[in-house]
């Protein structure tokens, strides 16, 4: 099976490449990147005026399976991923049961093998049941296939337990991902603390509850000289703390989600539960700070924090509604619209945030188009506009904060291991 993609602007930061090339895909691998390849192929794709880049590596995704198949399954979630140009996802372990044991990883691996349309990498939990009390057997989890550990949705409160986890993570070479939140401070909050929480009559989540925990987590990582990744950074103080630590040489990385730089707390004023997530949407200044953090390298990665919830969990009173929004199908277009079109990042810069950096941080052989590597790539029409519509989501859940928004950039093709898993004609936007 040969696929030849012609006349594309090929962007591959791993090879410092940003030029018009043809791409030959053969036997699931990138076979050639060259000018004007003259070969027969089973499928020739004309990619004039289009971009070819490595598929997105989304390192923060909830696919809900096993246990909450009413929200999402590996099948529906990875179809949504393919539609969004995401060829690899890292799934978070807060499923039912929690991915905290060898048996549960085996269970998940079985589901993935049967139903995934894109590559699914597994993050196991740091502590059993994500309760923050007892460490999982990180060595065994790694052996069974976990490439990262996280108690995402919760922060490990105990420094002793987190230190233990960091030591194990270092020894086993798995990435420890921190959801940094001091629940004692965020308590029952639902929106950003301040004028927004006051005028809405809702309990607030302070920025302190995030950045104080970011600071603590980084201090531990520094002390133990262990890599650590901070996920879903939402406020300027966190950006500042991460920036300072990086300048001192602490081995940390960080991601943010598209909503933290494209939306602000203003969006939540209508009590739209699709604007409810944790951490919450912050101020305009925070969103600006996140953007600058992306531009100056403080924040390495954009990840969706795709968090599907059913309508019955969202179409209820704001305080009772679940936290979280879907993002797999919109992340690329939000990034193009907010980061590239505004001039904050150039295209190679964006590809780093979405593909090259997360692959590197996770230590997986993805995020590049180097000949010989897996042909996980996407073809993108960068200028085409579309309006996000609820009915067009492939995700089982529709809780997107971008419904009704006009975005730039359409995924035309998604290839995983050389196979077309998504083609925009099938589900035109």
């Amino acid at each position, binding site marked *: 099976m040969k696929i030849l993609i012609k006349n594309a602007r090929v962007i591959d930061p791993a090879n410092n490449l940003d030029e018009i090339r043809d791409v030959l895909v053969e036997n699931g691998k990138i076979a050639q990147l060259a000018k004007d390849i003259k070969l027969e192929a089973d499928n020739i794709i004309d990619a004039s005026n289009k971009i070819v880049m490595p598929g997105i590596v989304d390192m923060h995704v909830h696919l809900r399976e096993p246990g909450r198949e009413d929200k999402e399954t590996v099948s529906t979630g990875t179809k949504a991923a393919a539609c969004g140009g995401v060829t690899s996802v890292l799934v978070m372990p807060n499923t039912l049961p929690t991915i905290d044991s060898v048996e549960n990883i085996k269970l998940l691996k079985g589901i993935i093998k049967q139903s995934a349309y894109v590559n699914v990498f597994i993050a196991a939990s740091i502590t059993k049941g994500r309760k923050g009390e007892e460490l999982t057997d990180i060595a065994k989890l790694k052996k069974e296939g976990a490439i990262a550990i996280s108690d995402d949705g919760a922060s490990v409160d105990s420094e002793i337990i987190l230190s233990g986890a960091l030591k194990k993570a270092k020894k086993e070479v798995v990435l420890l991902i921190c959801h940094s939140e001091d629940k004692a401070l965020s308590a029952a909050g639902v929106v950003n*603390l*301040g*004028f*927004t*929480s*006051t*005028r*809405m*009559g*809702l309990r*607030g989540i302070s920025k302190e509850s995030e950045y104080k925990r970011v600071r603590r987590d980084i201090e531990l990582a520094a002390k133990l000289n262990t890599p650590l990744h901070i996920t879903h950074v939402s406020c300027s103080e966190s950006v500042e703390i991460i920036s300072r630590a990086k300048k001192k040489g602490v081995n940390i990385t960080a991601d943010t989600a598209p909503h933290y730089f494209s939306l602000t707390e203003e969006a939540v004023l*209508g*009590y739209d539960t699709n604007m409810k997530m944790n951490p919450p949407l912050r101020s305009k200044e925070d969103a600006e700070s996140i953007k600058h953090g992306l531009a100056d390298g403080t924040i390495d990665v954009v990840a969706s924090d795709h968090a599907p919830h059913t309508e*019955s969990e969202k*179409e*209820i*009173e*704001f*305080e*009772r509604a679940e936290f979280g929004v879907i993002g797999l199908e919109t992340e690329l277009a939000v990034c193009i619209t907010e980061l590239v079109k505004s001039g904050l990042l150039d295209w190679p810069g964006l590809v780093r945030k979405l593909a090259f950096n997360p692959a590197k941080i996770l230590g997986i052989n993805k995020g590049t188009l180097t000949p010989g590597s897996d042909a996980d790539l996407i073809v993108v029409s960068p200028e085409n506009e579309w309006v996000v519509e609820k009915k067009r989501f492939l995700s089982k859940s529709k809780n997107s904060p971008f419904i009704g928004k006009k975005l730039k950039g359409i995924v035309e093709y998604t290839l995983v291991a050389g196979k077309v898993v998504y083609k925009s004609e099938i589900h035109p936007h």
Partner: protein
Amino acid sequence: MVWTRKDLLGLEDLSQEEIEAVLSTAESFKEVSTREIKKVPALRGKTVVNLFYEPSTRTRVSFEVAAKRLSADVINIASETSSVRKGETLIDTGRNIEALKVDIIVVRHNYSGAAIMLARSLRASVVNAGDGWHEHPTQALLDIFTLKEKLGKIAGLNVTIVGDIAHSRVARSNIWGLTKLGAKVTVCAPRMLIPPGIEQMGVRITEDIDEALSRADAVNVLRMQFERDEENAFPKQLEYFKNYGITQERLEKARKNIIVMHPGPINRGIEMSSEVADGMNSVILEQVTNGIAVRMAVLFLVAAANENIKNEDSN
């Protein structure tokens, strides 16, 4: 027409003109309650449902009296006696009520934003009778109506709101309404009961009750809801009365004709002394009477606007 909204959800969204439209409509309805036959046919054939998820007597009764004086049919639903207890969602409950061809739903809910959510999902009019800590627009409108009746104007007045500002929907609605009409609002409470960022609503903050009273034309005294102190953030009752309670002694240092208001029910001896509650400066019972005229005005205006919206849709 100034009023084109099918719902009344809060005062934050309203313009000065819209608030004035309610007040002037209320003025014309006030007289109805003084007649021997206290009824006008303005909402004859309309159905009003009072959907109350929180225990309330005075607001519910006030809405019921208002609707009945407009000749509407009124049905009361309290959460304890409905399918709400069986787990039905707010929107489903609303849609079921709407399917009964109800025209106006008056909703009281313990969650902020509940009335807004309901209004978004329904074609029927929704009137917010208090949602969480967010807004209680008809209470603020009747407070403002009473003030205007007493002092002839709102613009330029100094109004002090005392009490648990953080958890008070009455405070929020009053602040939006009063500032839009040009009053200068001071909020006064111990720091822990002042919510963050409230100064961005255009108010002055003080912790000193005597200072807050010294320049005030009126003081609106909030009920201390000790029963709701989940976070244990409140001062002790006696301590609160000592530091913030409105007493005759404190009033004597204030302007002579200072108006004293309270949304009720009063905790005598906690927010204010009995002497003040029953005294010369108190307009508390007049507020209750005015509540009927204001709620008649609101029911009338939202019903008329919704009628117009429906007519336009069918054209």
